[in-house]
């Protein structure tokens, strides 16, 4: 029997979206098939797998995958599945497999590029069958395409489609901004991943990432508390660490001020939110760092790098990069109402320790499982998910500043003084509809 496919075309209009997009399991399955298992998905950073045999597992759509460093130094992305009986080749989240994978069920072995190495007693056991070394089904299946941009590894499970750089377009500035801030021009992973589950649809998280209207409401309590203590410390010692400002900005930047920022919206759903935290104070640590950077790049280039005005970049459909603080959140949808975020921090190679410490404070305070920021976001996401199942209305509204956005050169930017435009949500859903419409 043919399964009824949901009619996604009718679910998306220019200024509103049908609630089923967030709640219908059939739509979720189609999203996995037509978006996550086709487009470029972030796997991890190459410094997560330094030596041949080092691996890291991840989920692309519904597929369990292994990112592994190959014998030649290349990074491979394989399906975590033994071609014999379907056993996962590795069960740990990360580790080293040595020179080859060895299935724990029947000891079949595979090279780190996926090629069959050996099957015990292959000659006697498979003689006369079609299971021969020449049969490509004997190998571990590889992701159709793997590309690396400045150390960040992406895979696409579709053989055809735009290259990674074509797909990311101008949004690849997320990685340029992060890496250029390193005097050595590259970053390396900080070996820890915070993982937090959201009981809500993955799109709710993406929409919130660029929702400049919400911080002063959602994060009022934390921003205010941090601001009070920030003032206390300043009174006692002259000045409070920057980490307090990172938290207090959520409240001191008031709701009307958020309109002064801007979002830049690109094809495929990508978006940049411009900066607001003012992370370039003139303290000694910053000035030391600027000197090192100027030495590496020259004064003019240093100035260009540091004046890149980004808060964070959303790389649709599964990555939010906060380049000035060297952290990112990868989105792994687990179900229509369940989403895992993997949160990573990176070190700027060649930058002085205090610069790393400053970003680390943000990683600990905002992105760790004890976050005083996301605690209230997750609460709202959950409430959204619950409320959207209700019959109290059919549509989700993205009307804010609709009709005022400025479209040019293939992108859409918010008009001056209209930074809280829901343009990013409209842009994401436009891309979503395009992806979902392709059989």
């Amino acid at each position, binding site marked *: 029997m043919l399964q009824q496919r949901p009619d996604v075309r009718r679910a998306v209009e220019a200024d509103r979206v049908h609630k089923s997009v967030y709640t219908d399991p059939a739509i979720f399955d189609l999203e996995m098939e037509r978006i996550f298992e086709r487009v470029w998905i972030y796997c991890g950073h190459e410094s997560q797998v330094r030596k041949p045999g080092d691996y890291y597992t991840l989920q692309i759509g519904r597929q369990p995958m292994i990112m592994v460093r190959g014998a030649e130094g290349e990074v491979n992305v394989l399906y975590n599945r033994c071609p014999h009986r379907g056993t996962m080749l590795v069960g740990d989240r990360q580790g080293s497999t040595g020179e080859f994978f060895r299935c724990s069920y029947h000891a079949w072995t595979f090279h780190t590029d996926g090629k069959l190495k050996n099957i015990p007693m292959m000659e006697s056991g498979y003689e006369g069958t079609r299971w021969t070394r020449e049969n490509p089904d004997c190998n571990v299946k590889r992701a159709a395409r793997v590309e690396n941009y400045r150390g960040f590894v992406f895979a696409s499970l579709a053989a055809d489609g735009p290259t990674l750089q074509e797909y990311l377009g101008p949004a690849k500035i997320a990685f340029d901004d992060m890496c250029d801030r390193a005097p050595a021009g590259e970053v390396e992973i900080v070996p820890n991943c915070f993982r*937090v589950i959201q009981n809500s649809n993955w799109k709710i998280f993406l929409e919130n990432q660029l929702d400049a209207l919400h911080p002063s409401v959602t994060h009022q309590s934390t921003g205010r*508390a941090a601001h009070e203590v920030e003032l206390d410390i300043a009174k006692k010692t002259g000045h409070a660490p920057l980490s307090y400002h990172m938290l207090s900005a959520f409240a001191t930047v008031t709701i009307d001020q958020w309109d002064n920022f801007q979002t830049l919206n690109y094809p495929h759903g990508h978006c940049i939110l411009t900066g607001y935290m003012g992370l370039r104070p003139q303290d000694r640590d910053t000035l030391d760092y600027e000197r090192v950077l100027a030495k590496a790049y020259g004064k003019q280039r240093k100035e260009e790098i540091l004046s890149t005005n980004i808060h964070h970049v959303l790389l649709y459909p599964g990555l939010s990069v906060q380049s000035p603080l060297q952290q990112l959140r990868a989105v792994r949808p687990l179900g229509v109402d369940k989403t895992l975020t993997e949160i990573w921090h990176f070190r700027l190679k060649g930058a002085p320790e205090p610069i790393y410490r400053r970003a680390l404070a943000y990683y600990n305070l905002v992105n*760790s499982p004890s976050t005083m920021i996301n605690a209230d976001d997750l609460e709202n996401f959950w409430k959204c998910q619950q409320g959207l199942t209700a019959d109290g209305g059919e549509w989700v509204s993205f009307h804010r500043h609709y009709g005022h956005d400025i479209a040019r050169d293939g992108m859409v930017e918010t008009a001056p003084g209209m930074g809280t435009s829901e343009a990013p949500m409209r842009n994401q859903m436009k891309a979503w509809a395009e992806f979902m419409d392709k059989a």
Partner: protein
Amino acid sequence: MTMATGQSTKKRKAAAKPGNESAKRTKTTLRKNSSGSAAHQRTASAQEANAPAPADAHTLQHVIEQFLYAQAESLDGKRWQDYINLFTDEGHYWMPAAPEQTTGEGVPSIFYEDKNLMQVRMRRVQHPDAWSQRPLWGTNHLVSNVIVESENGKKDELVVRSRFHMMEFRRETSRHFGGSYVHHLVHTPDGFRIRLQRVDMVNAQGPFEYVLQIWV
């Protein structure tokens, strides 16, 4: 180190909140064992620490257990300021991101908070617009397996290991966290204070369903 035991007990008594049954109980026990506290100061010298007299060891064990119980009670009773007051001015509450970590400095941590950051956390949960604090929410801590470990080479410091189990109920869901505490305790005129509390949760490495709003 010299310390008037009577005075420290009085201060401890003053710090306890009136009307709280469990706090009262703790207070009483501490007073009863104030001589134990003095006994501990004798064992605090390096030579004697290895072989404390049995009676002294028992009393010290008891006093420390009461301290840990009182700390747990302040969490379950949501008496956040009392909890913060148990730390020294330079004290830290630390929950490592990975069990192999040896310091909270310069590494990712689930919590690494001094008293100022603890103030932020407390004021946040007390703010009427801390949306996620609104639902019915409570915790229950059990602390056990208390081992007074060593003087840690520092004359004024006592290292205490223990195990905990924390059950949390929030909205419709219960969560369980279990693991170990390591308390680095110092004597002050006000009684023991925490220089460093390390909290290793056995399930800290898994994905978190929702977050940890307050210290465990």
